[in-house]
């Protein structure tokens, strides 16, 4: 089922939780709604579910305008952050509940529930109460309950935030697998950028009720549209700093990051002046002919070595391979890899990448 969101707005008094949002989702896509808390991503999800009434705008499922359709008639499956399982019912009763309410015969409901339970790998747990299940299992019951009525759209509100780190990685793969097996158009809300990037076909990054960028994860990571998206994606965070563009090139405290030729080669004429810039930690690489800095501290994270250093008073982080032998106080020679320096203009939108 295709989804189209047109000029969708939700206002609470003067505060706009979602502001003139436009988004279209293709059939069978898995979309991540990503943003910091309070950015309007859950409000968007609840408007899609029909639980929150939009102030203005329209929502289309396929060709049908569902903006005023009540949630039970929208053919959606909804999974809540806290799962919202009915605690006094067994797993089986929880899963058959939406079917029984839709007047499906009991025998058929049980059969379909068993199919669903098999899909989410809950076989053998059908007679338990939710309290006797682990967090991950409860999560899967919630997904089974959402999918059992064969909805056209699956909506998940922070589906992984209540799970511990290891289970989170497993469960997100599980969600991807189930989504692909059922081939259902899915939107999920998350504040975890890694989670969003790892399983989504496309991500919509939101801030203050506005979609900042809507793109495939890799494209978005490499070409953030503005400084917010650049800072929100990536762990460790992108290095943000103010530097000067002069006749010589891009300068920061006497360090020449780019020559004028390199800058101009990027295809856009950048006027002289001070600009906000960003470079990702993994884009700073060791070399022979770059600028020399002194490592302030070094953190071993396993796969990588994270080096903290300063240029002038601006702090930087650089990621290198963990086999590098380096201690705090050592000098190292670095450069910013080609096509990795993003220059933002005064309003924060990306100007050029060089």
């Amino acid at each position, binding site marked *: 089922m295709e989804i189209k969101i047109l000029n969708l707005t939700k206002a609470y008094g003067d505060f706009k939780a979602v502001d003139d949002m436009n988004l279209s989702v293709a059939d069978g896509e898995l979309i991540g709604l990503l943003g910091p808390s309070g950015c309007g991503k859950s409000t968007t999800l609840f408007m899609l579910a029909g639980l929150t009434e939009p102030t203005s705008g329209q929502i289309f499922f396929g060709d049908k305008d569902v903006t005023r359709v009540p949630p039970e008639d929208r053919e959606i499956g909804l999974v809540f*952050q806290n*799962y*919202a399982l*009915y605690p006094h019912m067994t797993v089986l009763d929880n899963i058959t*509940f*939406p079917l029984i309410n839709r007047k499906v015969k009991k025998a058929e409901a049980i059969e379909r529930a068993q199919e669903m339970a098999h899909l989410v790998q809950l076989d053998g747990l059908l007679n338990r109460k*939710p309290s006797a299940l682990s967090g991950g299992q409860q999560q899967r019951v919630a997904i089974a309950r959402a999918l059992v*009525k064969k909805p056209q759209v699956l909506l998940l509100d922070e589906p992984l935030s*209540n799970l511990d780190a290891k289970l989170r990685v497993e469960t997100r793969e599980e969600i991807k697998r189930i989504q692909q097996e059922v081939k259902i158009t899915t939107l999920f809300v998350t504040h975890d950028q890694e989670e969003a990037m790892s399983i989504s076909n496309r991500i919509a990054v939101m801030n203050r009720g506005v979609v900042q960028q809507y793109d495939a994860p890799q494209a978005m990571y490499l070409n953030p549209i503005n400084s917010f998206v650049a800072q929100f994606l990536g762990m460790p965070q992108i290095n943000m700093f103010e530097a000067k563009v002069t006749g010589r090139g891009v300068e920061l405290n006497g360090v020449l990051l780019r020559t004028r030729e390199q800058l101009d080669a990027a295809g856009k004429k950048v006027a002289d002046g001070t600009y906000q810039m960003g470079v990702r930690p993994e884009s700073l690489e060791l070399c022979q002919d770059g600028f020399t800095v002194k490592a302030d501290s070094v953190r071993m994270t396993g796969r990588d070595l994270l080096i903290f250093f300063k240029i002038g008073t601006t702090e930087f982080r650089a990621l290198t391979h963990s086999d590098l032998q380096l201690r705090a106080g050592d000098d190292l020679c670095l450069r910013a890899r080609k096509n990795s320096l993003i220059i933002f203009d005064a309003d924060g939108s990306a100007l050029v990448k060089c």
Partner: protein
Amino acid sequence: MKSTKPSAIIADIVKYVVLIAGALFTLLPFVWMVLSSLKSANEIVQIPPTMIPRKFMFSNYAEAWQEAPFPRYFLNTVFIATVTTVGVLLTSILSAFAFSRLDFPGKKIIFSLFMATLMIPGEMLLITNFITITKLKWIDTYKAMIVPWLANVFYTYLLTQFFSSVPEALYLAAKVDKCSDLKFLFKIMVPMNKNAITTVAILSFIGSWNSFLWPLLVTNSTNMRVLSHGLVRFQSEAGTKYQLVMAASCILVVPIIIVYLFLRKYILEGMSYTGVKG
């Protein structure tokens, strides 16, 4: 659990001594009632009093039973208490749901007015209620003893609080699952709060069982009287037949104990898992 430290053992001993003392203390009046019901008329007024009856007078029970039309009283009481309890549960559950989950104009004001009525002592309402009942010509009917007690602000308030603590997500999930408000209430809200509701049921039943003044006010004929009135029968100008009062009290208390034993499981179960993690 096995404690090894001497200090822990002493702490355990102190704990249990205090608990046992507390239990005995609360049990004593009850034990006294049972023992007194088996004493003879002379022994019960004897100074100093005896603890164990010299002779067990089981005949007290038969005598007490015949003193008043207890079977009729019993039927009346059971009928009134049952109908009142069922009725008050229904009204409290429905209004608690409205106050905790539904949005309607004036909700806060109505709830505040509800709460305000808790500040009025019941005795003050006695006269007005009596006048109302008289004007309705309900005197000496079951209606008079049941209808005024069909709504209870305190139970409504109690259940509203319990219902409010049920996570909103469950309500929304049920909505998506095509579950109407009424169905949500009786399929999810009520089973989830069965402990609180059982508590209300027991309180209401006991309250109705023990009521004395109101049934006495609104009834005239012996046929409409309730069990608690039977106890007054043993008072006369010649004095009170305490041994019979005690025997009748023992009979009276048995159904309440049975009700309690029957529902104890729910009371002791404690708050169950709320269905939501985190």
